[in-house]
């Protein structure tokens, strides 16, 4: 086994008196699909925000590719190859889909406010078009070529989720963080999304960390599952092990009524 791509060491995060995360540690193996599950308010999104840099943990460290990124700003983490999508859509509503995805190439482009406007005279045009080529590959992969010129704010929910995934993929990330990629989707869209996640993991070799509530999907596509409850890690391991765990059943998955009664008595 190679080095884990992401190492979380004893992360604690508190908002005033509310302890969102307490001493959570885990490792994400390179090239895996890693799911974080747990009841509402368990700290899943807080965990993701710590990894992507929106929240600064009160203690603990985050190591990405053997580099301590705990105190880096979110834009610096993007440069290192970390992409993410949001639970509530966060597209650039007035931009076209194409421009949205091109923003993902931001840290790879070099033209600036002088060389960019000199478009034909500088290398800007060549550079823009080269990156456009890559963006088109992502668009083809996610099958959104028919909407590439549409304004992002006018799209349907499922498509917006896909555009957001495309934007994160355009970053050329090594690690992609997905916050509930399948929330609010119908069965067909979920199947598509699951396929995209598997493909981007296998074809593009991107490590995936995702939060998801649909247990069927989580069990089917993840290599490892971690359960959070009240900001604490309950267990991390193979999906089947996690499913079988008594604590997880009680905290999140639920148990049959009579079984619970027996346990109490």
């Amino acid at each position, binding site marked *: 086994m190679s080095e884990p791509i992401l190492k979380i060491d004893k992360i604690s995060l508190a908002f005033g008196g509310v302890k969102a995360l307490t001493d959570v540690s885990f490792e994400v193996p390179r090239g895996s699909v890693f799911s974080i599950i747990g009841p509402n308010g368990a700290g899943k999104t807080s965990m993701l925000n710590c990894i*992507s*840099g*929106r929240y600064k943990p009160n203690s603990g460290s985050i190591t990405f590719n053997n580099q301590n990124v705990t105190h880096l*700003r*979110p*834009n610096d983490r*993007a*440069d290192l190859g970390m*992409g*993410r999508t*949001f639970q509530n859509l*966060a*597209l*650039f*509503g*007035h*931009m*076209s889909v194409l*421009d949205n995805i*091109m*923003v*993902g190439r*931001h*840290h790879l*482009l*070099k*033209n*600036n*406010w002088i060389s*960019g*406007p*000199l*478009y034909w005279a500088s290398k*800007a*045009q060549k550079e*823009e*078009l080269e990156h*456009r*080529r890559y963006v*088109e590959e992502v668009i083809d992969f996610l099958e959104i070529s028919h909407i590439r*010129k*549409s*304004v992002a704010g*006018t799209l349907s929910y499922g498509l917006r989720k896909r555009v957001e995934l495309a*934007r994160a993929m355009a*970053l050329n990330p090594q690690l992609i963080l997905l916050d509930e990629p399948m929330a609010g989707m119908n069965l067909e869209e979920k199947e598509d999304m699951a396929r995209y996640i598997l493909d981007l993991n296998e074809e593009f070799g991107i490590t995936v960390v995702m939060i998801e509530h649909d247990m069927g999907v989580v069990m089917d596509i993840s290599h490892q599952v971690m359960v959070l409850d009240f900001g604490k890690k309950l267990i991390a391991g193979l999906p089947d092990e996690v499913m079988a765990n008594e604590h997880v059943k009680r905290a999140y998955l639920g148990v049959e009524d009579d079984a619970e009664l027996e346990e109490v008595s």
Partner: protein
Amino acid sequence: MSSLTMRPCGDFRTSYAQDNTIFETKTIRMMAILSVLVLCAAPLFLDSYFISIFIQMSYLGIAALGLNILVGYTGQISLGHGAFFGFGAFASAWLNISMGIPVFLCIPLAGFLTMAVGMMFGMPAARIKGLYLAIATLAAQFIIEDFFARAEWFSGGSSGSMAEPINLFGFAFDTDESFYYIALFAFVVMFIWGCNLMRSRDGRAFVAVRDHYLSAEIMGVKLNKYRLLSFGISSFYAGIGGALYAHYLGYVSAEGFTIFMSIQFLAMIIIGGLGSIKGTMMGVIFMVLLPEVLSGGVGMMQETEWGNIPMVVDGLAYIKEMAIGLVIIMFLIFEPEGLAHRWKQIKNYWKFYPFAY
């Protein structure tokens, strides 16, 4: 809607470069080139009254485009644009008089000087938003105005300062007709610059910061840098516009660059359309023509028996200001996205007639 629906039948793009042009179709590009050529020939058949209006449109348009980059594209707000415009005017005159730099170099230099000042006042912009930023830029407006009145070495104080006409290879651009070409050239260059900025990396970053700054940061856009840069570029445009203004009039005085001018720039971009380069042009044309048409209207009223009363004749200045206020309110209510949006709707209507959509 998307530009795809507006494309005529049979217009296929086979390369990404073709798909990424400034003008949507070849016809539009031809029209644009043609109108620039017609404008080049304008002094031959228009008298200097119209030429001076065109020159006005050009320097105001350049400054308004700068404000649109800041307000429309980056989603910041500035109430100090008039003062930056004035700073550009004084800076260019000052560079020419006290340093002896030739005027045609002074204009871009004044732009960069204004950019530096703008970034200084834009520093809080990286940290505050909305109403607070509006007040901070309002402070900039008054500080710079006060600076004009007090810094005699720079602006000549209350007596103002003289600005030499542009002199290139021994030819002085001191008439309306000759200066017109300078103004037209600057206008075209600055607008193409704006168009290209918006289709390259930094322009997209501006819009990203406006639409969703949190996810822009996650995508690798440095928020503080781009908010500050946007202020800088907007002041740069204001400085260029102001410098042209100075060398056109030949004399700069501090009275002109008040908060009213800042509001006028804001009015231009709101009427034209926030976040639209085409809209900026339309807004400027509208706002420059509005007072002219009004004074024409008042002139016609004066001819009539009932109109030749002091209320109308002396009230022109007030009618002008009221009309500007009224127009802004009407646009905010009926067409908040500006003339550019209305233009698009008219185009769609023609395209799809007789179907509704």
